[in-house]
């Protein structure tokens, strides 16, 4: 069902050749199809790029066309769909970036590749309230966009969790599908594969390696229309994603942080340079011409209102809330739990709470 062209791309991608060399091979002939058809003519040049051994393997694979068919069959059995560069499914936005992946390995709902996408990324150290806010943003934005993120703990996890109920979520991995990383997100990874879509540029047996993550970030930045950076230090992976996104001409949004917050220094830095300071959903939806229908007003009892207002002054300990509202300390847990269920506040650990709306 793949075209000749697509098959040739899959063939070219199936040998562990690093991206630069792959591209040089790609450029040898006018297209991978031509390269494959006349590989014997290009053999010498190909061997010069990838070495004799790999070149011979490539030639062997071509000679025995069953091999490729078998490979496709194994992928299919594992539920993996290959989307090569020239496929009609390949996202147009991604095709436009300077170094597009040759083949996308996909697991899950392949139709999510079509449609408008928005990336939400964050660092692994994301404060509890920000996690909750990120979740809510992802949930809301998933009504208008397909949410794209990585799979790390922290900000990425929150974004995926927010969007997962709608199923409109894509997680871009920096390793092959045979691996799980981080281990604590195993369940989440499975659920994204069930309800959403997992994408990787790498064949299934590619181990997670530190240098693969920045490479992966270009896919996140390239596949989406806009990026929201929810947290990130001065030199973090999210910073790379944001820088790439702005190079590709995407809109970049970032949460502001107060002075001296290490986990948000990167956010503040990109706000200074190019990102749009974002503290509510409208900041994002306006940029895309989406008219956000305000969610229904949440009804609060006077006591709940008082506690909520007290928390809007800033993160506070139970004792402080008690001082601000005049309510007794032991009355507060019940009220705060209710507010937490209404998604208005979040517990930050150490008996402290923060408003997230």
């Amino acid at each position, binding site marked *: 069902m793949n075209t000749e062209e697509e098959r040739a791309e899959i063939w070219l991608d199936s040998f562990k050749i690093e991206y630069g060399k792959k591209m040089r091979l790609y450029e040898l002939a006018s297209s991978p199809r031509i390269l494959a058809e006349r590989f014997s003519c290009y053999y010498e040049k190909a061997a010069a790029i990838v070495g004799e051994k790999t070149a011979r393997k490539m030639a062997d694979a071509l000679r025995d066309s069953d091999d490729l068919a078998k490979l496709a069959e194994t992928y299919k059995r594992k539920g993996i769909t290959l989307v090569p560069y020239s496929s009609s499914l390949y996202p147009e936005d991604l095709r436009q970036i300077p170094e597009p992946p040759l083949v996308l390995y996909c697991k899950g709902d392949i139709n999510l590749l079509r449609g408008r996408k928005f990336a939400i990324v964050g660092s692994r150290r994301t404060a509890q309230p920000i996690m909750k806010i990120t979740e809510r943003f992802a949930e809301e934005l998933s009504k208008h966009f397909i949410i794209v993120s990585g799979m790390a703990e922290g900000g990425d996890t929150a974004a995926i969790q927010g969007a997962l109920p709608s199923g409109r979520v894509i997680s871009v991995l920096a390793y092959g599908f045979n691996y799980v990383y981080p281990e604590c997100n195993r369940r989440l990874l499975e659920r994204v594969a069930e309800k959403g879509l997992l994408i990787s540029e790498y064949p299934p047996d590619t181990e997670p390696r530190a240098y693969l993550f920045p490479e992966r970030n270009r896919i996140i930045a390239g596949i989406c229309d806009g990026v929201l950076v929810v947290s990130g230090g001065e030199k973090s992976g999210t910073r790379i994603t944001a820088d790439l996104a702005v190079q590709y001409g995407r809109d970049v949004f970032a949460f502001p942080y107060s002075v001296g917050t290490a986990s948000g220094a990167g956010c503040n830095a990109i706000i200074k340079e190019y990102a749009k300071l974002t503290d509510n959903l409208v900041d994002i939806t306006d940029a895309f011409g989406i008219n956000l229908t305000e969610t229904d007003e949440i009804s609060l009892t006077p006591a709940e209102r008082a506690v909520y207002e007290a928390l809007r002054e800033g993160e506070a300990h139970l004792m402080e809330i008690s001082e601000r509202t005049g309510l007794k300390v032991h009355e507060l*847990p019940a009220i705060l739990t209710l507010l*937490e269920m209404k998604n208005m506040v979040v517990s930050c650990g*150490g008996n402290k709470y923060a408003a997230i709306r």
Partner: protein
Amino acid sequence: MLSKVTSFSLAGLEGIPVEVETDINNGLPAYDLVGLPDAAVKESRERVRSALKNSGRKFPVQKITVNLAPADLKKEGSYFDLAIAVGILKATEQLPGADIAEIVFLGELALSGALRPVAGILPLLISAKAKGYKTFIVPAANAKEASYIAGITTYAAENLQQVIAHLTNETRMSALTVCEYTGTEGEPCRYDMAFVKGQPVAKRALEIAVGGGHNLLLVGPPGTGKTMLARCIPTIMPDMTFEEALEVTKIHSVAGVLGGEGIVRVRPFRSPHHTATTVSMCGGGNRIVKPGEISLAHGGVLFLDEMPEYHRSTLEALRQPLEDGVITVTRSGGAYTFPANFMLCASMNPCPCGNYGSSDKICTCTPAAIHKYRSRVSGPLLDRIDIQVEVDSVKYEDLVSEGREESSADVKKRVERVRAIQRQRFAGIEGVHTNADMGEREMRMFCALSRECENILKMSFERLKLSARARSRLIKVARTIADLAGEERIRPEHLLEAVSYRNYDSMNG
């Protein structure tokens, strides 16, 4: 000539009568001790010989055979010294006119003839009394302990000479007068809630936990007073009744950790170190099966400081006793059941570095490290801990502030009130004393939930991602909170407060 003296041996908390038979025959001087004695019992020969000599009596230069019956029961410890000495005296007719048939002799002999105390006097006397024995001679050092048992005649002797004088009617000892149990009145408290500054949440949680007999987990940075709070738990628990005190004393007596007081008045507080082995926790031992920490904490508090540091197997071993309130230690020699109805109070840091959630210190742990640390405590065990609260890091100003804090005595009054409510509620239901003990049947009877409450429960499960297992625990805690508020029915705010004490579950998410 043959003589028979009664003594007792201990198996677990149970006393077993042992007949000490002594036979003196003409022949080559020898001393044979039969009836499965252990080393300590065998060595009694030397102690008895010297004690007799130093008490002005003769150790016969004849063939002596001592049999400890029943012959198939292993005899351990030094309970039989006195009985053997008396047996030899009787058999050699050095006790003219003495009637020893009705008397139970217990005690270890020193070479000088003085009587040394033995462990487990209280459970021995209780078992013996139940078996119909009426008169006892025990070491003077065990007198306090023995004096709490009414309905028997107990003589406490300083040394063998006193016993001999008593038996031969030269100088009769006077029987011990029965001691009145007085509870903890007048006991000075080393710990008091009034000394704990701040911590309103933790204090409230303590009150609820004790009120309903729930287990408690304190999560907080190092040095925030988790241990101090835990130490306060016995001070707000209701006083032990005499029966409870006796039960606790029995265990402490067997373990040989009973103080000079003779009875355990204050609820025990045990805090075994995290290197504790499973055997030291649950009880056991290769010769004498002794109660472990969980039994020593019976009726009181078992405090596990830094819970994730304990051996996994040790923690898992707690699960069954937490449900049943007893532990059965099974060894090749037999199975011994010890009571182990304790309140579990555990403490832990929120993360390996301890600063997660702290306002002034930065947590340096990665999420994976935190996850790993927390997962060291298994879900099933965590499930048995109904209340999980965070302890605040204390600011310096709070420490030196003069604000008055509520004292333990005040809190205790409230606790006693809710316990009274529960006693009334569960009157006539076997094995259920507190809200935490409730089974499904009792919960259906006493914890009816309104539609509003059901909705809240449903919402909390969805929103806060609580485990389904937590449901009944939540309702039980809500029941206690309602009791504290003096309410007949569980109201939404009670349930919500209970939900707020499942913090840790949602943190684990």
